[in-house]
């Protein structure tokens, strides 16, 4: 045997013996081959103990061969690249792969928690709920230990170096599952000319045929698979996704597939920029879906059925044929149906001794029973394996005669030594996606399984997933589903003959949900139903005794079907045991809900490329490069990045802002205000329309005139504000807040399109077209004149709150004489492509005036000094214009959106929170923004709050801090003292004052 792989068969299998490789498990090095899974390589090396169970810390080994594996949950890789909670049965072996068992701290073999198993009797269902309830204050302590003991994998604590991507795809037919039925359906649809996506979670297509032994058209079945795959690959509109798990079936036939991508050996050497995609998330819109994911074999529920070495029969056959691994030397096969007989034949063929087939059915198997007899394998019909011996590995099976009576006690009369117990309790179709899509399930009493019933979306099920367990039936059902799909699409189905198979008829399965034991069900050794969650027959019976009846409640009380496993193995056995305990038929008990994801999906796959710089768009103004070159730290405003301040000579924020503020007050400053929303409003009904949505009298504005305007929601609350300019009789130009730009356009379009379609008005967003340069300060006029302006800028020719078109330094601009600083100011609108040029020219010419670029922080301070609000900072969606003292903006002569709400009693309350200014009594304290205001200090909590601070800055112009606040009944309380109470700090005494701190008469902006 090569390099210690004691269980590796000398020949056969789909592994590549020319590519031996080494890997490690729990720090120990082993040998395997390319084509192995981590599970098959561990079995080849005779590693049977792979972890400890969730609650009882019992030793556990590999049970299955694919997505159903409950025990072999691995942490693969080290450090940042570690991937928690992978199933060893789905991990392809790679050179140097390092895996650890996720459960079994501090080590798999010496688990301190194993002592818990001795206390198993008191660790029944609901143990944690009952025990760790009191005293309440201790819960945090309990929780720490419970979480530590129960954990699955460990999330890496540094960024994931792997690269992920998303792909959107569309197809006529999506086939989930590439076994015989799926391949047949895909071939049928593709030959009809449909666009097909075929996804299979395995490395190779073939599904159950990969486990070998089948024949199609007289040749090995995998030959037929190879032919079908080759034909599909040739078709231009057919996409084959191997290693692709369809994990979510969402509304409107939207499905999600996660595809593990093959890593090239030299991938790491290419560096992070060329790192290949590790996983790809496919987002598929399919017109039709064929679900062909096959069926899961069920374990049988007997005492100590979780011992390593107890495996699903189909998995044993798979390891023999696919991986050339013989998981045991002396086997017992225990079944209630015919399929496991093939495993007995496979085992014998691979050189194992099959000590017995234990068949719970008194009549034994159908035609296959004869073949087993010819091989000399003893069959014990009408018997069960009631218990097994061995702890870290099965040592023997205790066998009893059984009359067929559920819950009867049996006597073990025969003990057979074995190191492998292959079990089959029948098959459960993988109905997960069908259920996720809203499809109903129907109980099939003859096959003892839930079958996909009525579908709610355009999908169909085929093959073993549809209860067609023989190969011939699978192929025929795949063809049927493929034809049905293309017919529904209006395509002509091709003529395809069902390939010939050579199966013999099987004897029917017989129900065996819980194998009788020597003692009654509550006192016998544990009979596991859900291996991953350590749920036993006794737990379910306890839940029923304690009053739980509904399957969803029992699930939550016993943890049945939780975890990465999602009940793939245990659910049906669990429901059947519950039904028997309740004395109800199984369909009446029903199933729990199946939800995405079908198997665990990495967070990285969900995030895709949206990480780092691509996490969210960064919107940049046309002047962004200048700001960056000037070293301005950026403030994130929605998706925009705006310069916050322009530090000089290592200034901090406060020093820079103080300098910038004084420059604007004393000479002239310039700000990039391009992020303001801008909307062109045109048409004969423009005035009429704007009258309805804005609160002020729009019709009184003459062309060339600007006005401050506010928009209210239907609730009367301030929604947005900005400047409205009338450019012509039928043409207006609106500005909105930076954050409100898209919302305001939507709001206006909504009213125009849905409520007032008769109004002749066009709205066009010009936010991106124009850049806005705000030039503010007493020298702003001189600056523009110096730069060269073709219109007079003096007070009489171009008064405050007016708009003009002009040529500035030879460039066409619109000039708005509006001011958000209270100073003489001009807002220049210029086509964005020309903005950098104009900005540079202004900076050149401005040297004479010490023109100072300023950022959003200075803008905030300047406007707060004037008591100008910022919607969204000083308002929060519950503030009316009256609260802000803007009654003068509310027209009495017309109706407008929100007007009626302002007359609601609540809007008229005298104690509504109103905008006020605050000055700290001590004079030098900047009150933290958001601080709550209280009437007096020294009160016991909870202290009544009468307002909060919305804006707070140090004012360099005034020489002391200022703040804006919303205070209950505040306007009538000028001169009163309140206390700002920031958490964890001494209360600050503040005086209520007018919000207009600077130039309250407003003379400076009119010069």
């Amino acid at each position: 045997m090569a390099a210690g792989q004691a269980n590796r068969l000398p020949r056969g299998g789909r592994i590549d013996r020319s590519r031996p490789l080494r890997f490690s498990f729990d720090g120990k090095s082993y040998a395997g081959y390319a084509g192995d899974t981590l599970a098959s390589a561990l079995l080849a090396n005779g590693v049977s103990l792979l972890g400890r169970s969730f609650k009882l810390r019992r030793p556990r080994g590999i049970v299955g061969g694919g997505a159903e594996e409950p025990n072999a949950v691995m942490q693969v890789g080290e450090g940042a690249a570690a991937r928690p909670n992978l199933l060893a049965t789905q991990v392809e072996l790679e050179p140097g792969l390092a895996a650890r068992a996720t459960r079994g701290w501090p080590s798999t073999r010496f688990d301190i928690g194993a002592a818990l198993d001795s206390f198993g009797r008191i660790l029944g269902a609901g143990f944690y709920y009952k025990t760790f309830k009191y005293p309440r204050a201790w819960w945090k302590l309990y929780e720490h230990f419970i979480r530590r003991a129960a954990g699955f994998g460990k999330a890496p604590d540094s960024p994931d170096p792997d690269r992920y991507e998303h792909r959107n795809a569309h197809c006529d037919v999506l086939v989930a599952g590439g076994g015989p039925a799926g391949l047949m359906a895909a071939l049928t649809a593709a030959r009809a000319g449909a666009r097909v996506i075929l996804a299979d979670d395995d490395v190779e297509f073939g599904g159950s045929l990969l486990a070998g032994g089948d024949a199609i058209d007289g040749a090995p079945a995998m030959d037929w698979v190879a032919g079908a795959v080759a034909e599909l690959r040739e078709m231009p509109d057919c996409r084959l996704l191997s290693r692709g798990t369809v994990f979510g079936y969402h509304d409107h036939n939207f499905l999600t597939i996660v595809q593990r991508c093959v890593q090239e050996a030299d991938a790491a050497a290419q560096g992070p920029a060329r790192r290949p995609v590790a996983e790809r998330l496919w987002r598929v819109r399919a017109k039709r879906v064929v679900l062909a994911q096959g069926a899961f074999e069920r374990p049988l529920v007997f005492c100590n059925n979780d011992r390593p070495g107890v495996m699903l029969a189909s998995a044993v056959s798979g390891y023999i044929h696919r991986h050339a691994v013989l998981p045991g030397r002396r086997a017992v096969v225990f079944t209630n149906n015919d399929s496991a007989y093939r495993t007995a034949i496979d085992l014998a063929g691979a050189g194992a001794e099959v000590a017995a087939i234990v068949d719970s059915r008194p009549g034994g198997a159908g035609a296959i029973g004869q073949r087993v007899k010819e091989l000399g394998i003893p069959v014990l019909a009408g018997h069960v394996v009631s218990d097994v011996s061995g702890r870290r590995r099965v040592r023997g099976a205790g066998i009893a005669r059984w009359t067929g009576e559920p819950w009867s006690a049996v006597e073990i009369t025969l003990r057979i030594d074995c190191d492998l117990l292959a079990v089959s309790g029948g098959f459960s179709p993988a109905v997960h996606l069908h259920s996720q899509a809203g499809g109903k399930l129907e109980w099939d009493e003859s096959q003892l399984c839930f079958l996909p019933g009525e579908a709610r979306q355009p999908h169909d099920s085929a093959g073993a997933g549809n209860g067609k367990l023989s190969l011939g039936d699978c192929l025929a059902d795949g063809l049927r589903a493929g034809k049905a799909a293309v017919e529904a699409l209006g395509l002509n189905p091709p003529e395809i003959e069902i390939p010939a198979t050579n199966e013999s008829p099987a004897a029917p399965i017989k129900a065996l949900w819980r194998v009788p034991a020597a003692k009654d069900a509550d006192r016998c050794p544990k009979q596991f139903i859900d291996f991953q969650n350590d749920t036993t027959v006794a737990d379910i019976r306890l839940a029923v005794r304690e009053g739980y009846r509904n399957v969803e409640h029992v699930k939550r009380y016993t943890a049945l079907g939780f975890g990465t496993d999602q009940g793939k193995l245990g659910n049906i056995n669990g429901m059947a045991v519950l039904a028997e305990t309740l004395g109800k038929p199984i369909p009446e008990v029903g199933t729990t809900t199946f939800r995405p994801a079908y198997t665990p999906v990495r967070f990285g796959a969900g995030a895709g490329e949206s990480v780092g710089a691509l996490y969210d768009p960064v919107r940049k103004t046309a002047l962004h490069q200048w700001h960056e070159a000037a070293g301005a730290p950026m403030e994130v405003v929605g998706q925009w990045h705006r310069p916050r301040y322009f530090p000089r000579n290592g200034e901090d924020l406060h020093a820079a802002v103080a300098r910038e503020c004084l420059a604007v007050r004393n000479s002239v400053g310039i700000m990039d205000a391009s992020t303001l929303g801008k909307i062109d409003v045109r048409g004969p009904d423009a005035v009429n329309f704007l009258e309805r949505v804005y609160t002020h009298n729009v019709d009184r504005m003459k062309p060339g005139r600007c006005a401050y305007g506010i928009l209210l929601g239907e609730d009367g609350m301030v929604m947005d504000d900005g400047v409205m300019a009338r450019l012509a009789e039928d043409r207006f130009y609106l500005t909105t807040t930076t954050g409100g730009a898209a919302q305001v356009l939507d709001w206006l379009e909504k009213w125009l399109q849905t409520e007032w379609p008769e109004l002749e008005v066009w709205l066009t967003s010009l936010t991106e077209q124009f850049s806005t340069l705000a030039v503010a300060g007493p020298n702003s006029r001189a600056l523009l004149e110096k730069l060269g302006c073709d219109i007079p800028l003096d007070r009489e020719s171009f008064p405050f709150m007016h708009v003009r078109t002009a040529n500035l330094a030879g460039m066409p601009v619109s000039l708005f004489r509006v001011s958000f600083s209270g100073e003489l100011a001009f807002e220049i609108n210029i086509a964005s492509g020309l903005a950098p040029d104009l900005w540079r020219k202004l900076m050149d010419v401005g040297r004479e005036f010490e023109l100072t670029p300023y950022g959003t922080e200075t803008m905030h301070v300047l406007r707060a000094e004037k008591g100008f609000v910022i919607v969204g900072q000083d308002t929060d969606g519950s503030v009316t214009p009256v609260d802000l003292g803007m009654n003068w903006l509310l027209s009495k002569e017309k109706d407008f959106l929100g007007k009626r709400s302002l007359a609601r009693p609540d809007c008229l309350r005298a104690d509504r929170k109103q905008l006020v200014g605050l000055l700290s009594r001590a004079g030098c304290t900047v009150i933290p923004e958001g601080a709550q205001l209280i009437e007096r200090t020294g009160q016991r909590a909870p202290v009544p709050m009468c307002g909060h601070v919305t804006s707070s800055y140090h004012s360099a112009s005034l020489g002391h801090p200022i703040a804006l606040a919303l205070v209950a009944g505040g306007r009538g309380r000028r001169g009163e003292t309140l206390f700002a109470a920031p958490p964890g700090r001494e209360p600050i005494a503040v005086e209520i004052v007018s919000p207009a701190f600077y130039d309250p008469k407003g003379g400076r902006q009119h010069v």
Partner: protein
Amino acid sequence: MSERIARPHGLEAFFGAAESASRDGVEIALLKNRGFLNLRLDPRRERTVKAAEEVLGQDLPLAANSFSGGKRRVYWLGPDEWLLETGAEEAGALRGELEAALAGHHAAVNDVSGGQATLRLGGPEARTMLSKGCTLDLHPREFAPGQCARTGLARATVLLACIDEAPTFTLIVARSFADYLCRWLANAARP
């Protein structure tokens, strides 16, 4: 009026200092000196449509998600909205002509040349690259030459047009998103 679009930083990862580059089956080029007009009018008013078409010398496409070629491209943006792509030098004059011809009609013409960045995408893997961030079906039968759509690409809104079967696509995006989108494209162009 010459249009100067600052080169988005995001493209450097893909083509360094060059204006266009081809790699891994994808070609990306930044188109300069493009002019754009936004046109709103009610297509049910035949006289208004005719007045616009006379100035343009070509039909306004009325079928959803299509564009008309000819002297310039006219993209359908909505039932009453079009985007006209012209040379940057021509945009101002064309706007004047349209406004004159549409005076007295219920229509709006706005020069939006300053608000857009234009990219040309091509190469055998162009569809694959776009499918990483666009949920539309870009199969040649579903999104054929002559079709366009205002749609999401990654987290930006773009106007995507299929120009020819090569395939060649034109991508028009709001200028503030150009840097982000170019970064995204440079990333998505990786195989």
